[in-house]
Each structure stands twice: as structure tokens, then as C-alpha cells.
């Protein structure tokens, strides 16, 4: 019995290969979407960690020789033996690759590219046998060494043991600086007692972008889940259609005596088999697409497919598993409903048709009602939501509510349009479109979610990019930064540099408490650097003028939020009251910050003199200036930080992340387009009897075909119009609710109308492409088939 039944079930696909194709392709595409997003996420992750590595070199305080000379081994050992937990570093260049020598046993946590890959041999690394860690592009330039490719290596940098580095750089026994680990013993002697010729350089707190990138990652993960939801919609559609098409066969099989339970089990097994095949295809497809779309393909492939393979396509088992789990899980979710309906389906056809139609009507109302409830919850939460769970609940309500509301909204819009229709053709067109809506609604929901996801991704990513670059501009404006060892060197440096550069900007600050919040307060010189680059979240008119004049204060968002300060509120510094004139975004800084004018700072804190300076200089002239500075004064090269280089490097790394999200857009739209194609093809058979009367009354077949195409584009357009506010609401919820809940600060939201317009055009193109083939098929329906509708009363 099982064999005969299975034969009958499977023969369906044999006779209808197109349906089999749509089922498999639907499942495969949904899986591909998921695995593609995973790939994009992985690429983003790799980019961050490379960027963080580059930026992270300045993460720890360090000790340098006051005179810029190398530190000797004895001094390092003396520091260690005095209980200072420090680690030596040497840097230099070989074949134009930056070589960083570190001491892995003492290096603090995540300094440098020390995340050793599996191929690493600790003994070889430590025993001075020449292992290096670097990105793939660098490896070619270090042919004489055993280079281990590390995803986490900073660009153009190779990390190796300090002993090796000293040897290959020809500087035996020399140490450029020692890094100070964050956790030191409870008590230790003063630096001046152990190594009086060393000075301490503060960590570059402003380049800590960890929080910023964490936030970005959280948002990308949220969109990964969204793409999964789109995929589930499609799987659901594909499976629902597969069941719908075989409903009569199922009824016949039961009438001929196949027990219901066995039928359900066989169909479930059949589906699982297909899901498995389609899932496997989808995983491969997803990575192929991702690999094609992502820039820097070689690096990406290496990042995705394991570190020690180059060029060969090798999917990680975890990707396989998660991809297949999505395909199978999505199928189970989708099939559970369809199979349940199957068990409830009456054995006898006939009188139940009307009841089904009535049930469908009830379902439409229930759906609209559910949408209303969810959107109401969204509206309430958007005002009240606090915390991560509320934030994600808000997102879920918004998305599901909007998707459920779509058929209802479209139906109302079409009803409205049909009222305005003058000609008979137009009337028929609107009415017919309305009739089509239930069959297409699932595909349109998928399109809605895909569009909304794209609008959301574009907004979020572009907002992030704008914020991030603006933030780097603001914080790393000066081309060079100089750390001076003592006031005498500082005075000499200022006297030397002032006539030679565009501007010398002293950086002086101290720790104070404002409104019970620990705060770093900076005294800042009146210069265009600040006026041009520091963007305020909120600012009173002329906030820099009044602040430089010593009348007002500017504070960061963290301080404003925690102390409940807004523009105009008075703030007391050293007993002096000043109103807040501006609030600026300070991404990734855990504590409060405030800025007052240089002269006021000097009045309030006369004992603090600047030891750190920003220099504005034509970047082209910077190297010559540094050379002259180190030759003419006792400032050493180690005291000069070329911030422009760091900035350019980190921006370039992040740019890679930003461009890969384009891949996400194309993928989701492709899937949504496919959902439309699938629905139209399925509806095509039902369309013939609906179109035959219009044909009989004098419309040509090509006219009908064009109208079919127009209908698909029109529905897509209406959906796109609905998707735009949804996507913006989505981005808003992520940036303003979820981000605040997770990190305590709001990522500003910027709008990019051009991007949205382009996305809209893409969506319409996808819909038109999807509708083209079904429309052509319709236009070529043989008249005999149309005639059959009238001759054959069914």
C-alpha cells in the first residue's frame, strides 16, 4: 500500500516538473537568503575585528623612553621584577610590511593579532623559529618566513615574537615601548624609582570603537533574523501551494482507501526529503552568491571557509547545519499548518466549497484584526519601550502587524481605485485585481518584508557610516599628535612647532565630577578644527562662540542622559555656573565628558598644563615636519602619532563592511521576486476561466497579457509605498529603541531618499521580471483553451 501511495504522490511531481521546481527553488532560495546573510555577517565581523585590531594598538597605556631611544632589556626586566606587569613591543618595516614584535606570554589580552589560528605551533612561535601572523596579502611579501594567515590581522601588518622581530629588523635587544596591562598588582613602586628615563603615554581612548561596532553588529543580527522571516514566508508559500495543488489527489487517495494517518506521514516524509535537497542547494547557492557579490573575494572566501584553505570552496560544517536546519525547520513550520488542514479536510467534496469561501472571508477579517492589535501594541511600545526585550517585541509587532495588514490595506486601496474607474476595461481591471489579491498576498507580504528590510538596512548602515566617519573626523581631526615628556619639553615643542605648522592645539583635561557623574573636562583652544568637525546632537546658537568665550559649557550625550541635562541647564564647575550650550554624540565612551574654553580652563585649573598636542598640517608635509622635529628637538619619533594614517586605515576597513550590505539588498529582492513569480505561475491555471469572458467580449490576448504585467507592477508599487514607512519605522526602532537599550546611546538616524528611490525601482523591476513570463504565457494561450471554458461546464 505504501509503495502504491508513494508512487501516486511522487508521480505528481513527475508530471508537473514546474511545480517541483518552484517548491525546490523556493526552499533553496529561502535557505540561500539565510546563508547569504550569514556570510555577510561573517564578513562584517571579520572587518570589525581587523579594524579593532588596528585601532586597538593604542588601547593600552605604554611606557616610552623620554629621549625616544629604545628601551633596553635590563629596564624591561627591572620593571617586571618590580611588579610592573608590562609587555615589550618592537615595530619596524620589512619589504614595506609593518612588523610588530610582541611577547605572547606577557602581552595583555587581545593586543595585536594574537588570535592564533589552528595551524599555529606554540612551540615554534615561542622557540624563535620564525612564525608570523598576518593577513593573506602580506604573506606574499614575506617569502622567507612561515606566515600563518590570520583573519584578525591588521592590514599590512605581520605580528611575530619579539625575539624574531629584533633579529629580522636588525635591532637585537631593543624594545620600542612596553605596554602596560590593565590589571596591575595591588601595590607597586613608583615608575621614577625603577626607570626614571621612561614616560607614560596615555591610551588613545577616543579611538575605542568597540561599542560602536557592537551596536552595528546587533543591528545586522536583527536584520539577519528579518531575512529569515522573509525566507519562512516563502517556504510557507511554496509548501502551501504544493498542498493546494494536490488536494484533489489526496481526496481520491482517501476515497480509494488510503488511511489518513499514513497519507500524512508519507507527505511529511516526502517534504522532508525535498527540504533536505533544497536546503543543501540553498547553502551552496547562498555562499556562491555571497562570494560573487562581496568585494575582495579572495579574502572573504578565506574568511568564510576556514583560514588554512586558499581558493578551494569548503563550507564549514556549522554553516551546513544552520542552513539545513533553516530549510528543515521552515518546512516543518510551514508544513505543520498545511498537514493539519489536510487532516481537517472533508473526504467528500461538493457542498463544502461555500463554507470554505466563508472561512476565507472570516480569516481575512481575523487577519486584519490581528494586524490592528499588533500595530496598536507597537504604537504603545514605541512610546514606552525600555530594555532589549521590549525593543525586540516592538520590532516583532511592527513586522508581523504590517505584514498581516497588507492584504487588507491593498484591498481597501483597490476598492477605492475601482470607484474612480470610468471605462469598462478599467472597472474590470480593478475588480479583477482585487479578486487576485488573496492568491498573491503571501508573495506580496514577502515583498513587503524584503523591501522594508532593505530600507531599514540602508538607513541603518548609512546612518552608521555617516555617524562613524563623522565621529572619526571629529576625534582624529589633527594630522599629528605629540606627547611631550614634561612641561619644559612641551614649551620647547610649542615654540618650535608654532611657526612651522597651521595650528598647535593643546589638549588638556582633568577628572572632575559634574552632577555626581565622573567627567573628563577639557580646555579647548578656539579653532576652526572644532567649529567645523564637532557635530552637536543639540546645540544652542553660537555654542562654540559662547564656550570659547568662557560663558557656556558643551557636554557629551552620556553626561546629558545620566545627569538629565539639556540645553540651557546650569552646570557648576569649580563653583562657577554655566549653561549647557551643546550636546555631542560620544560613541563608545563609558563616562561623561565636557568642554570649556581654554582660557577658562587655565583660570579654573592653573596647575594643569598641556602635555599632549594636536597639530594641523598639510598631510603631505607631515613626514618632513616629523623628521625635522625629531632632528632639531629632543622629541622622539615614538612621541609622534600619525593619526591621519590610522584614520584612513580604519575607514577603509569599515568601507568594506558597508559595501557588502548591498549583497543583502539584492538577495532579499531576488527572493521576493521569485515569490511573486511562483504565485503568478500557480494562479495562471485559475486565470484562464477568469480571463475567458473578457477575451470573449473583445479584449485581445496581448492586451490581457499587458494588463497582467501592469497588475503585478501596480501591486508591487503599492506594496513598496507601504514598505517605505515600515522600513523607516524599523530602522527607527533599531537605532532609537534597541540601541539605547543595549548601549545607552542613540545612533542618529539619517534619511537617504535617493537610496529608497533606487530600492523602489529595484523592487518594481523584480516584480516586472517575475510577471513577464506568466504574462507572456497568458498572451499566448491558444484560443481553444479559452473556448473550453465555455464548452466544459466544470
Amino acid at each position, binding site marked *: *500500500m505504501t*509503495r*502504491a*501511495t508513494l*508512487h*501516486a504522490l511522487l*508521480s*505528481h511531481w*513527475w*508530471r*508537473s516538473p514546474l511545480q517541483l521546481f518552484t517548491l525546490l527553488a523556493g526552499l533553496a532560495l529561502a535557505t540561500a537568503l539565510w546563508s547569504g546573510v550569514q556570510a555577510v555577517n561573517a564578513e562584517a565581523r571579520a572587518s570589525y575585528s581587523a579594524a579593532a585590531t588596528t585601532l586597538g594598538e593604542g588601547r593600552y597605556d605604554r611606557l616610552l623612553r623620554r629621549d625616544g631611544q629604545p628601551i633596553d632589556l635590563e629596564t624591561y626586566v627591572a620593571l617586571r621584577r618590580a611588579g610592573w606587569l608590562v609587555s615589550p613591543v618592537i615595530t619596524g618595516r620589512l619589504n614595506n610590511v609593518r612588523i610588530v614584535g610582541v611577547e605572547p606570554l606577557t602581552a595583555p589580552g587581545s593586543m595585536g593579532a594574537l588570535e592564533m589560528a589552528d595551524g599555529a605551533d606554540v612551540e615554534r612561535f615561542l622557540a624563535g623559529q620564525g612564525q608570523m601572523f598576518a593577513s593573506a596579502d602580506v604573506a606574499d611579501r614575506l617569502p622567507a618566513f612561515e606566515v600563518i594567515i590570520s583573519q584578525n590581522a591588521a592590514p599590512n601588518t605581520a605580528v611575530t615574537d619579539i625575539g624574531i622581530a629584533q633579529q629580522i629588523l636588525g635591532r637585537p635587544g631593543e624594545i620600542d615601548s612596553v605596554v602596560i596591562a590593565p590589571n596591575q598588582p595591588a601595590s607597586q613602586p613608583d615608575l621614577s624609582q625603577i626607570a626614571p628615563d621612561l614616560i607614560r603615554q596615555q591610551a588613545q581612548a577616543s579611538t575605542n570603537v568597540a561599542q560602536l561596532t557592537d551596536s552595528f553588529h546587533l543591528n545586522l543580527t536583527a536584520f539577519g533574523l528579518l531575512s529569515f522571516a522573509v525566507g519562512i514566508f516563502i517556504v510557507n508559500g511554496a509548501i502551501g501551494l504544493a498542498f493546494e495543488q494536490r488536494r*484533489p*489527489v489526496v*481526496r*481520491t*487517495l*482517501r*476515497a*480509494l*482507501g*488510503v*488511511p*489518513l*494517518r499514513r497519507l500524512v506521514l508519507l507527505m511529511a516524509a516526502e517534504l522532508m526529503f525535498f527540504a533536505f535537497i533544497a536546503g543543501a542547494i540553498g547553502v551552496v547557492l547562498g555562499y556562491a552568491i555571497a562570494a560573487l557579490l562581496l568585494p575582495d573575494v579572495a579574502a572573504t572566501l578565506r574568511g568564510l571557509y576556514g583560514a588554512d584553505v586558499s581558493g578551494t570552496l569548503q563550507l564549514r560544517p556549522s554553516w551546513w547545519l544552520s542552513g539545513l536546519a533553516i530549510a528543515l525547520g521552515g518546512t516543518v513550520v510551514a508544513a505543520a499548518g498545511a498537514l493539519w488542514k489536510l487532516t481537517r479536510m472533508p*473526504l*467528500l467534496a461538493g*457542498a463544502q466549497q*461555500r463554507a470554505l469561501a466563508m472561512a476565507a472571508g472570516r480569516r481575512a477579517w481575523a487577519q486584519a484584526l490581528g494586524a490592528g492589535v499588533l500595530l496598536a501594541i507597537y504604537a504603545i511600545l514605541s512610546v514606552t519601550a525600555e530594555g532589549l526585550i521590549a525593543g525586540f517585541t516592538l520590532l516583532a509587532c511592527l513586522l508581523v502587524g504590517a505584514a498581516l495588514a497588507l492584504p487588507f490595506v491593498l484591498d481597501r486601496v483597490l476598492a477605492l481605485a475601482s470607484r474612480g474607474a470610468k471605462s469598462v476595461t478599467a472597472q474590470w481591471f480593478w475588480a479583477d485585481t482585487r479578486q487576485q489579491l488573496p492568491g498573491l498576498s503571501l508573495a506580496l507580504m514577502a515583498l513587503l518584508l524584503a523591501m522594508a528590510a532593505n530600507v531599514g538596512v540602508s538607513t541603518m548602515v548609512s546612518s552608521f557610516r555617516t555617524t562613524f566617519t563623522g565621529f572619526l573626523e571629529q576625534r582624529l581631526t589633527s594630522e599629528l599628535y605629540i606627547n611631550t615628556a614634561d612641561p619644559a619639553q612641551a614649551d620647547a615643542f610649542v615654540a618650535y612647532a608654532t611657526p612651522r605648522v597651521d595650528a598647535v592645539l593643546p589638549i588638556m583635561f582633568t577628572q572632575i565630577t559634574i552632577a555626581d557623574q565622573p567627567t573628563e573636562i577639557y580646555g579647548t583652544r578656539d579653532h576652526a578644527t572644532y567649529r567645523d568637525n564637532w557635530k552637536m546632537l543639540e546645540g544652542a546658537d553660537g555654542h562654540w562662540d559662547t564656550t570659547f568665550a568662557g560663558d557656556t559649557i558643551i557636554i557629551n550625550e552620556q553626561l546629558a542622559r545620566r545627569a538629565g541635562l539639556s540645553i540651557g541647564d546650569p552646570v557648576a564647575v569649580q563653583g562657577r555656573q554655566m549653561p549647557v550650550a551643546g550636546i555631542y554624540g560620544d560613541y563608545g565612551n563609558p563616562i561623561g565628558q565636557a568642554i570649556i574654553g581654554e582660557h577658562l580652563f587655565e583660570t579654573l585649573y592653573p596647575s594643569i598644563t598641556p602635555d599632549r598636542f594636536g597639530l594641523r598640517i598639510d598631510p603631505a608635509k607631515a613626514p618632513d615636519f616629523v623628521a625635522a622635529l625629531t632632528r632639531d628637538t629632543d622629541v622622539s619619533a615614538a612621541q609622534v602619532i600619525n593619526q591621519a594614517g590610522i584614520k584612513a586605515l580604519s575607514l577603509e576597513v569599515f568601507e568594506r563592511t558597508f559595501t557588502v550590505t548591498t549583497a543583502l539588498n539584492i538577495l532579499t529582492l531576488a527572493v521576493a521576486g521569485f515569490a511573486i513569480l511562483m504565485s503568478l505561475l500557480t494562479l495562471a491555471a485559475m486565470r484562464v476561466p477568469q480571463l475567458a469572458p473578457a477575451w470573449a467580449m473583445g479584449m485581445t490576448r496581448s492586451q490581457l497579457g499587458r494588463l497582467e504585467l501592469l497588475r503585478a507592477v501596480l501591486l508591487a508599487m503599492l506594496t513598496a509605498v507601504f514598505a517605505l514607512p515600515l522600513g523607516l519605522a524599523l530602522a527607527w526602532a533599531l537605532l532609537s529603541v534597541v540601541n539605547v537599550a543595549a548601549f545607552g546611546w542613540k545612533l542618529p538616524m539619517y534619511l537617504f531618499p535617493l537610496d529608497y528611490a533606487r530600492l523602489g525601482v529595484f523592487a518594481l523591476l523584480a516584480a516586472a521580471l517575475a510577471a513577464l513570463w506568466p504574462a507572456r504565457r497568458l498572451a499566448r494561450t491558444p484560443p481553444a483553451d479559452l473556448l473550453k471554458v465555455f464548452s466544459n461546464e466544470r
Partner: protein
Amino acid sequence: MLLTVENVQKTYGTADGPFEVLRGVGLQLDAGETLALTGESGSGKSTLLHLIGGLDTPDQGHIVLNGTDIAALDDNGRAELRRGTVGVVFQQFNLIPSLKVVDNIAFQARLAGRYDPIWAQTLADRMGLTAQLNKYPEQLSGGQQQRVAIARTLAPKPQLVLADEPTGNLDEETASIVMDLILELVAETGAGLLMVTHSQALAGRMQRRLHLRAGQIA
């Protein structure tokens, strides 16, 4: 006695309230006997046929087939009944569109585990389907499709054949030929035949006839 139907009642819910289709119907049928069930549209004759075929269950009463009360069977039991003991010829043929004619004919016998290729071949020959065996149902005419459905029903040699307007979708001449075949083959297998029809001519060719009016035997 092959089939005994006693006081069967059946009510359907409709938009206008409950509708009593059968109000206490009884009948008997012996092996090898043919019986026509006639009546107006809505008189309940198809419903009665579905109940006897185990496609639906009565609200009250007994349907005893070969000593088993099928009203008391569960879903599996009724499925088994449909597979092996009873064969139904539907007005709409209900062929499996994705299977070839030869597979459609063999299908129910295979389900019942009683497939006899020689008998199946004989049926196909007698039905004049020899040339059509490798075609799909959609490539056949209505009369040919119904003959496939009849062959499928008879292939497992059921003890009771139920036919619901088997020639309702066929023209008069084809209907007559198909009817001859059914009667001939039923006689050969010794099965009982219960046929629902509204054609007096067809009913006249049965050994007995019962008329159903408003859910009761008239």
C-alpha cells in the same frame, strides 16, 4: 445477506439550519444481486451511497456489510473497507491525473494487496482500453476515463460495487456500452451492485429498484 441497512439517519448543517437528508432508511442486498436506487436531486441517494461506501458515517442506524457494522468502524477501519471490500465508481471518475492508465487500473488492487496482472489485463481488454494503457487520463475522452475508473474499481474484485451516476457524464450511446460492461463484469465476479441513478432506463436493467423520496424509501 451481503448488505443490510437499518434505520439510517443523517443530518447536515447548512446555512439555513440543519437539513435531514436521510430519515430512517432500510434496505437489503444479496451477493450477485443488482439494485437501482432512484430519486430526485436532494432525495439523499448519493448520501446513502457514501455511507454504505464508508466515506461518511450515519448519525443513527446500522449498515452491516458481511456481518460487520461499518457505522461502528473508526477511520482506519473504514479506509480498510474502502480498499478491499467495497468499490466505488464515481460520477467524476476521480482518476489520479499523474498516473498512466495502466497504473490507475492497478492502483486500488495494489492498495488492497490483491493485484492480479492477468485480471487487470482482462479488464483493460474488456473495457477496450488496450491501446490507451500508456496514456494519461487527461488524454482520454470522458467515456474512456469512466471505463478506466470502472476497471480500477473491479481490479481488486470487491464484494460490493457502488456506482454513483456512473454514466451521468457520458452520452447515451457510451452510457449504454459502459452499463453493459459493468453488469457483465459484476455478474462474473459474483459481487453485489448498488447503483444510484435518476435514469429510469438504467434502473430498468437492474434486478430490483428502490425509490428514495425526501430521505425515505418510497
